[in-house]
């Protein structure tokens, strides 16, 4: 979703959180349970906050994550 809706974003996996930078703003997402970093299940509230924080186009995001509708 980020590749399509936030082109040019930077995603950095740090020890505790995932950090995403896009057009001068930053957002964070939790890692998965048991510290799983790959294919982590992330609750929808975190995604919604990231979309708001980074100013992403909602139509683009909903196309890739319909559960946000």
């Amino acid at each position, binding site marked *: 979703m980020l590749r399509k809706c936030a082109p040019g974003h930077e995603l950095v996996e740090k*020890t505790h959180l995932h950090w995403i930078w896009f057009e001068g703003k930053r957002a*964070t997402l939790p890692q998965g349970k048991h510290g799983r970093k790959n294919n982590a299940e992330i609750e929808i509230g975190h995604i919604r*906050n990231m979309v708001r*924080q980074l100013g992403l186009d909602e139509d683009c995001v909903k196309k890739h994550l319909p559960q946000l509708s």
Partner: protein
Amino acid sequence: MAKYPLLFTYRDLVAGKDFLAGITTNGRGLLVEEADGTWTMYGVYPGAIAGVGESREAATAQFRDMYRAALYDIAETATSFHELAAEVKSFFHDKNEINEAEWDQAAERISSEGQGDGWLRTQKAKKHPPKVKVEEVSDRGAEANQLDEEPVAAVA
């Protein structure tokens, strides 16, 4: 969908490379009961974090954990106290503007209704402006250990 404009004060001791920092945050978050009955605390100051849970307590607890985790991530890469302080201030002031607009509306609603819900005290928003303080506390001893304050709902 219930929305509560929270004012919170978090106090953390964060260890960095050769220093100990005391970080006090007067922040803002929007606590929302979602349509499916779960709760989300959306960050305003700082805007980059959120917390989710089956109850308001779980959501606010996860938000607190996310905030602490962010400080620890920042501390890991800071090469000096001053670098840590600058990055923490930048992180805190990276406001979530959409959440802030809803937060303001929720504070107006509570003002017009005259009181918050029974489980939450209220405070005028202007008495709790958003700010963060970062101090080097390596020589303070136990005096540097301080607890958080209970969150309150903002009134306009």
